[in-house]
């Protein structure tokens, strides 16, 4: 589904992604972890085509991301920061995204899940950060795509919305989707992730399941396991 080979990206003098190789084929939940500035968001953005890497190959569902934008119809993306056109209303925003994708979708269940129905006619500039993040969730899960990419999805969510988000993720996993997300909340990783991809200084230093990370690090909690792997600095080989 996602095939990355020899991916390199610089921002000025900083080598953000160093020869990344990644192969994701099985449905499941994949957590991309790593310290700040390790390249998590750049990796996700490269898959979506927001970032132009200098070298390497990225294929999503068999199509190269550098050739056409059509492959993005198989991706749902939830960005880290939820900011929308200030003067549009929620229902106008949803209509706009459907119009742009040229795809029909039923948002009723999502709006009900996040209690957004009373807010539908409010202008987006009048919504709180948490409500905007809920709108972001609705847009992120609106379309039935095989690949779902979430960049720090739980930021600004209240505990009730977080619980609903978890239910949503579990349902998507059952449907056989590939879910790729970044987070700094380790309890979420322990609760959900089938696989962990650990980045450090632009290299993948670990890829595998929770059991493997405990075994490899010799630790019994995810925080300590990651800290231990980061300290030993990994081997940077393609997994």
């Amino acid at each position: 589904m996602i095939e990355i080979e020899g991916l390199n990206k610089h921002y000025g003098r900083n080598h953000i992604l160093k020869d990344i190789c990644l192969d994701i084929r099985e449905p499941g939940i994949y957590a991309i972890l790593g310290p700040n500035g390790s390249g998590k968001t750049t990796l996700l953005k490269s898959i979506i085509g927001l970032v132009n890497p200098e070298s390497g190959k990225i294929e999503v569902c068999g199509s190269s991301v550098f050739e056409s934008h059509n492959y993005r119809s198989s991706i749902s993306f939830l960005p880290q920061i939820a900011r929308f056109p200030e003067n549009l209303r929620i229902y106008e925003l949803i209509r706009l995204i459907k119009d742009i994708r040229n795809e029909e979708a039923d948002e009723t269940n999502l709006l009900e899940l996040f209690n957004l129905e009373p807010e539908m006619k409010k202008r987006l500039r009048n919504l709180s950060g948490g409500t905007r993040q809920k709108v972001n969730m609705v847009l992120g899960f609106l379309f039935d795509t095989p690949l779902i990419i979430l960049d720090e999805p739980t930021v600004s969510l209240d505990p009730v919305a977080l619980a609903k988000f978890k239910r949503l993720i579990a349902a998507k996993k059952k449907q056989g989707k590939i879910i790729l997300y970044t987070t700094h909340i380790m309890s979420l990783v322990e609760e959900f992730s089938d696989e962990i991809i650990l980045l450090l200084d632009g290299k993948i230093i670990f890829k595998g399941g929770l059991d493997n990370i405990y075994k490899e690090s010799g630790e019994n909690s995810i925080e300590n396991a990651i800290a231990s792997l980061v300290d030993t600095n990994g081997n940077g080989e393609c997994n």
Partner: protein
Amino acid sequence: MLKFIKYSFFDLVRSYWTIIYFLFYAIVSSAILYFSADMTKSIVSIMNIVIVLIPLVSIIFGTIYYYNSREFTELLLAQPVKRSSLILGQYGGLALSLSLSFIAGLSIPFLAAGILGSEHFLDFLLILLTGTCLSFSMSAIAYMTALRHENKILGFGISLFIWFFLAVIYDGLILLLLVLFREYPTDSLAIIMTLLNPIDLSRVTIMLGLDISALMGYTGAVFLKFFGTIKGIPISILSMLIWIALPAFLMVRIANKKDF
């Protein structure tokens, strides 16, 4: 692209700033028409405001709009869309909403003052056309600059400097060159330098239309002598269109290479 023009237009047209911009033109042109009985004088006064204010507002509004919609642009680019369509669409919506505020703000008082049946109707239309071209051109320059610079303060500073250079420094520069090369024929130099500045170009275009030689200045007079009114106006409008197309082209190039 039309979808993006539609959304950014409907977003911006409901913004407080667009409404204030419209009201400003409506109030100022009503006041000018009220205090001046002569339509020609009113049009010249409006021209002076248009030439200073449109570039400044377009530059500020264009830069702020890009930086404000930065995150939403990312979300839209994650959809199956072409970068060029999105960026040109956003820019189109921005320039259209600015132009509409200006056209509506000016037209309502002038229509009420009876411009339709007046001998100055074509002059008024020329102001609307030039102002619209200037809105499209300067907002394209602003959008291009903001796209090029991720740092908001730097992008905003460069945009404002471009306005300051074109609106203020440039005229001084022309004068300096004309004085320095006074012993040589400078007509071609004056024409080329006018064509290279969209603000000067707008001023000369309106002056040619109004045919007021006293207000033309040296460059306007040379332009008139060289092309005449009949050829001069189409040539200057065509040059204005190049001033829209060129930054729009550069905008797409920058967007295609940019990391969002």
